[in-house]
């Protein structure tokens, strides 16, 4: 297939060629960035919370005073344990996808000259680590005598678990076991490393910080009360147990306020946490589909016009011996050249848009891999869109050449 005649024919239709090229370039740029954003949202939505989600529910109480906290803990504990199907009830300050309650900056030195980052402190009573189903990759879980009393926010000098991601951030390449860090007016010693435990608000911090959690064993008391983790024997029972748990609270603690917004299964909290990301992903997919549809229509419209306009020339070529395949390939080559031009322009535009987004929305740089994907999609789209007009062109009989019009 010769490219020269295609190019010189396009030179006769500069304006139309330019328009369709620009349309494809813009479509390519938006396509690459939209795909990249979808991938970002999907990976955020697949954050590993590190807990045994299908078996876990959460009950949050409000409107009680710290003076009555121990009594409340005892009553709720016994009340919830009576529900058939409940394996354990433990006191925790929050759960993944619950309210973000205890974030604080930490440092590797007591003077706090250098802030090493803001992390989430999960304070949790005995049994919580087992109930959550935390997976330890190094070290050990806290012993029963290591659950300290909370004075203000956390027990003093606690023995804690940290996630692998946080350990790698604080001590890159080192064994974190036995290491000490400072924060919330005290220090912490690491006895174990967790595979995963996401922050309650995993997307609320910078990229790569979703797993910056510290698990602090603590005795339930005035500063650790009213927030309970329920683990059931069989996940199938969870919804029933949660309904009964909400009813049980009204019986055992009629004067406190059950936080209906937070008291749900962890699965539901997670689903709700990502609802805007889900909506945005659906929207982006919809935009991409509409975009490709409109672009294809543009190609079909323009190609049909060109076919109609050149039917006489096609007839002459056929009369001079060109096969149907030659005519078909002519229009396919033409489309390929136009789409390629659009893609080249589109890639530059894609990076431009990405730079703009990086500046305004703290999006990471567009990885190179999205460009060939975008190019491939548009090439395929272009060939599919031009197929029908090109086939119609190849059907033009040679006799057209002999007609005067």
């Amino acid at each position, binding site marked *: 297939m010769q490219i020269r005649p295609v190019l010189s024919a396009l030179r006769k239709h500069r304006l139309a060629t330019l*328009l369709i090229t620009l349309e494809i370039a813009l*479509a390519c*740029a938006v396509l690459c960035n939209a795909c990249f954003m979808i991938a970002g949202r999907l990976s955020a939505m697949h954050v590993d919370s590190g807990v045994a989600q299908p078996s876990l529910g959460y009950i949050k109480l*409000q409107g009680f005073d710290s003076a009555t906290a121990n009594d409340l803990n005892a009553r709720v504990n016994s009340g919830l344990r009576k529900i058939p199907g409940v394996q354990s009830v433990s006191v925790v300050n929050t759960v993944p996808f619950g309210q973000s309650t205890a974030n604080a*900056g930490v440092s590797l030195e007591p003077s706090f000259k250098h802030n090493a980052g803001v992390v989430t402190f999960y304070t949790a009573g005995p049994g919580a680590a087992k109930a959550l189903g935390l997976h330890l990759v190094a070290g050990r879980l806290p012993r029963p005598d290591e659950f300290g009393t909370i004075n*203000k926010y956390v027990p003093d000098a606690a023995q804690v678990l940290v996630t692998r991601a946080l350990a790698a951030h604080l001590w890159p390449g080192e064994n974190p076991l036995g290491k000490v860090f400072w924060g919330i007016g005290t220090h912490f010693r690491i006895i174990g490393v967790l595979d995963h435990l996401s922050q309650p608000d995993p997307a609320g911090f910078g990229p790569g910080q979703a797993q910056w959690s510290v698990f602090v064993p603590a005795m339930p008391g005035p500063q650790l009360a009213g927030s309970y983790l329920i683990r059931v024997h069989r996940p199938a029972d969870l919804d029933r147990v949660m309904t009964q748990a909400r009813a049980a609270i009204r019986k055992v603690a009629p004067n406190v306020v059950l936080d209906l917004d937070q008291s749900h299964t962890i699965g539901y909290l997670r689903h709700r946490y990502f609802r805007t990301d889900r909506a945005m992903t659906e929207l982006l997919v919809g*935009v991409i589909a509409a975009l490709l549809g409109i672009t294809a229509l543009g190609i079909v419209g323009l190609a049909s016009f060109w076919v109609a306009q050149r039917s006489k020339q096609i007839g002459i070529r056929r009369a001079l011996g060109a096969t149907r395949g030659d005519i078909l390939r002519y229009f396919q080559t033409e489309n390929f050249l136009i789409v390629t031009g659009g893609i080249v322009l589109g890639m530059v535009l894609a990076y431009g848009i990405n730079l703009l987004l990086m500046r305004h929305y*703290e999006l990471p740089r567009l990885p190179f891999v999205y460009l060939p994907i975008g190019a491939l999609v548009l090439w395929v789209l272009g060939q599919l869109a031009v197929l029908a007009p090109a086939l119609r062109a190849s059907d033009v009989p040679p006799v057209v050449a002999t007609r005067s019009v």
Partner: protein
Amino acid sequence: MFAYYLQLGLRSLRRNSVLTALMVLAIAVGIGAAMTTLTVMHLLSGDPLPGRSAHIFYPQVDATPAGYTGTPPHPMDMLDYRSAVDLWRAHHADRQALVADSPVKLQAPESKGPPRMLTMLSTTAGFFPMFKVPFQYGSAWTPADDEGRARVAVISSYLNNRLFGGADSVGHMLLLRNTAVRIVGVLAPWRPSPQFYDVRGGRYAQGNTASFYSRTEDVFTPFFSSLQINDGHFQQFSCWAMPKKPGHLVDSPCAWVGLWVQLDTPAKIHAYRRFIANYARHQKALGRFANTDTRMMSLMQWLAFNHVVPSNVKLQAWLAFAFLAICLFNTVGLLLAKFLRRAGEIGVRRALGASRGAVFSQCLTEAGLIGLVGGLGGLLLTLLGLWIVRHQDTPYADLVHLDLSMLVVTFVLALLVSLLAGTLPALRASRIAPALQLKTL
């Protein structure tokens, strides 16, 4: 002549009904997407206090305690208790109000309902006149109530409807935690967008700022009274060191109180800037502050500083306009094809005496016709889009509606887009040489 062009345009559009439908559809979808997102942007980035926002300011000082290192020397988004109360007590502004939020347990002894948790705004009497808060029943408390730590409250119309069925509840009692307070005022429905006086920390929100558009608090109480009523339940914005008792933030090294002031003249604004600068210098001299940085933004500056419009909404607007641009290129291409296909017809018209301008305006009339129909379709799609946004689970869903200005913008945009799309092809069509066309006929 225009009526004739209109007739010609209609006939031509009917001739290629599929192509026409495609062009109308492209414009309608593009306009629908662009106008839906633009309307949401317009509603979320508006001025919550039209005509007054230029006089409302948010003074800040860097209250980092002397001897503390580890944070950059900039004012935090809120003030510590002492600085806030010092500045408020000075009464150097035309009006001033302290604000702090806390969750509180509320019971209405008369309604016999279960206790509920609500957010309480602790503020001072200046809040209501400064922000022109509308009252349905009763009125705000007096400055004397602030200092006298009176047990009074103002409630929202939403809460009044829930507790008292919308009746005049002034004089009734509420139980806030363990303290009985008397209702002195009930607000008329009040829905500032955003809930501007609680905006802070937006730059740390990673663009997830939809919560700035939630409803107002349901209970408003005098600042100093509420410190006693709800002691132990206040939440810090940030702390330089841990407070002695969680939730008890008076005289703690924490930033948790906001101060809003009204300054009516440029001279007063200037004087107030000097006043807070002097205050910070004085506090440093006394050994309380580490730095002397101060900042005072106007309401709209503060909203911009906090990036109040959620980044998802902005992203959607960008996407919609990129989409509209693609629709535009598409329409230009299709119109060009359509007009040039009629080159013979145009050649005849030109040969019969039609001027270039006549051909141009005839083509443009046809393009405008497409734009008008597309705009109508776009309007319907915009209404559909806004209906979808209204049924989404976002704090600003109830704010979303199409106002008159946006309705006009929709049609102007549709017409503009199609005329823009039509200009280039129409120009090309008007430059068709009649002789060449006639020869091939």
